[in-house]
């Protein structure tokens, strides 16, 4: 499992390099044609499932496992809204508001990340393949617990444009939620929670 996640991260990193390398160029990219110009906007809705994966203990005491599966947590639901505005060909900046809910054996976990989002669309009309990165803060509750943590969510999608304005497709998004304590009694409880979101999406271009 860990090797797969590492592979995914490497892939995302490589793709990101391409994104910035292409920024500003007006030529076709290697997958298709330039489709989105500066000033165009997208609005998307997501709904799907979120899978608890594991936690990474960043300050685990000696003799304890660093990576532990999140077996106490069930499959959850996720939904979200995203708005983006293209600032270069196929490259957008925007805002993302997402909410996820799941349950453990005794409590409900909810995370509501509010993120800045940036992404790049690879086009092969009528298909398009965005990669994106949401970074922001997540408002997390678990029973009586509440905390605000950073939230980093890289993702990729595969959409089919059913009209010139509407596209539908699938997103896969990885959630890194670090809850890190630098001092105090909780340092050894510092964890990075990892989730995988799989969702259906509808995108409106305007």
């Amino acid at each position, binding site marked *: 499992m860990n090797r797969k996640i590492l592979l995914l991260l490497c892939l995302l990193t490589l793709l990101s390099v391409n994104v910035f390398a292409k920024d500003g160029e007006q030529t076709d990219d290697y997958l298709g044609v330039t489709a989105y110009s500066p000033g165009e906007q997208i609005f998307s809705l997501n709904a799907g499932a979120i899978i608890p994966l594991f*936690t990474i203990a960043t300050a685990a005491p000696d003799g304890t496992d660093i990576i532990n599966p999140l077996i*106490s947590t069930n499959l959850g639901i996720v939904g979200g809204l995203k708005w983006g505005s293209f600032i270069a060909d196929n490259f957008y900046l925007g805002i993302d508001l997402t909410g996820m809910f799941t349950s453990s054996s*005794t*409590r409900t976990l909810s995370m509501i990340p509010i993120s800045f989002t940036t992404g790049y669309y690879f086009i092969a009309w009528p298909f398009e393949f965005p990669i994106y990165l949401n970074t922001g803060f997540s408002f997390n509750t678990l*029973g*009586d617990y509440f905390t*605000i943590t950073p939230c980093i969510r890289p993702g990729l999608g595969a959409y089919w444009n059913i009209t010139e304005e509407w596209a539908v497709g699938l997103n896969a998004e990885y959630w890194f939620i670090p*809850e890190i304590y630098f001092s105090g009694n909780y340092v050894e409880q510092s964890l990075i929670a990892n989730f995988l979101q799989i969702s259906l999406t509808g995108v409106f271009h305007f």
Partner: protein
Amino acid sequence: MKYIKYAILLTAAVLAFSCVDNPSGLFYSLQYESEIIDGELDNGLTIGDMAMRNAYYFIASGAFRYKAVDGTTWSVSTPIDAAGYSCYKLINLDEIYAIFFHTDTLDYKLFKAVTTAVSTDVITWSEIVIADIPTDERLIDIAQSGGRLFLYTEKTVSVVSGNDKRYSVYSTDATSLAAGTGLVDELDSLDSYGELDVDYDGANYWLISGNKLYSGLSGALVEDTAAAEASALILENGYGGVYCHGTDVYLSTDEGVLLKYTGGAWTDLTGAASLNRIFDIERVTIASESIDVLLLGSEKGYYELDLGAAAPVFTSPETADTKLSTPVQFASIELSNDVIRSFFFDTDNNRIFALGYNAGLWENSLQANGRFWNVE
């Protein structure tokens, strides 16, 4: 540059607000949350009382329920003459005695449950009519300690204004109780109502009723004001519970104060702790570790006092590891927010039960390799 400044300010503001006082890390709590065993009993029940007899547990929980000590299924038994009545109190005094209450008529009935054949799910009920209770008084509560049953009665008196209820306390032993006679007058015409709790220190009975504490031999109970005077108690709601361990007497108040009497004087064990309203007291011995812990039921979970510590302080599992739970487990179970009015300690099987108010029955098996609460 301007946007970067705003982003830094926003980040700082969010991080400042993120400093929330959780008892542990949120994801840490999630990661190490243990799955509790949730039995078939309704977790919203109010458990008024609990007893054990003939390897069966009995609870007064609206219905009179019982199950085998090692069983999982709770059965209900109701005396024929108590149809429509609810059971909220029971005791074990050579047999199980249960008090049934009719919510419409406010009528109370006391029954004896002969449980010798309980293993075949047969309970023989017989109503106990105590002829010695004056006809203008009605039985409303029972408690048991030191081999005696204490009965609490209520009557209505004529007054110009104010409280027209008066309460009396009687006691009897098992033999007399079975015969329905032989009541001993303990206290008469009390005007306060509240928790009725009694315990026996081997020589004297200690009884609380409302905001009064009484002590002495059966039939010679006298009001004891030393506890209230010693600690300048403000007893707005009264005492919460009384508990004897040997000659030590523990006394809790609804205002969150715990007192201890060791024969000389009352001392306040509360110290600097700021406790919620506290109720019943129970002392638990964890045999495997020779640990004695004092438990205090509270309107929000319970407190522990490790009596083996050099300087015992009240601890809630909400904030620190305790002998019976951990913050991670405690935060993940409803018990942490429940009202726990009393406990039942099964010394034979080394189990402690926390009796919830609209919160079911919680059980901790006091295992040496990790103690966790499960719910029946």
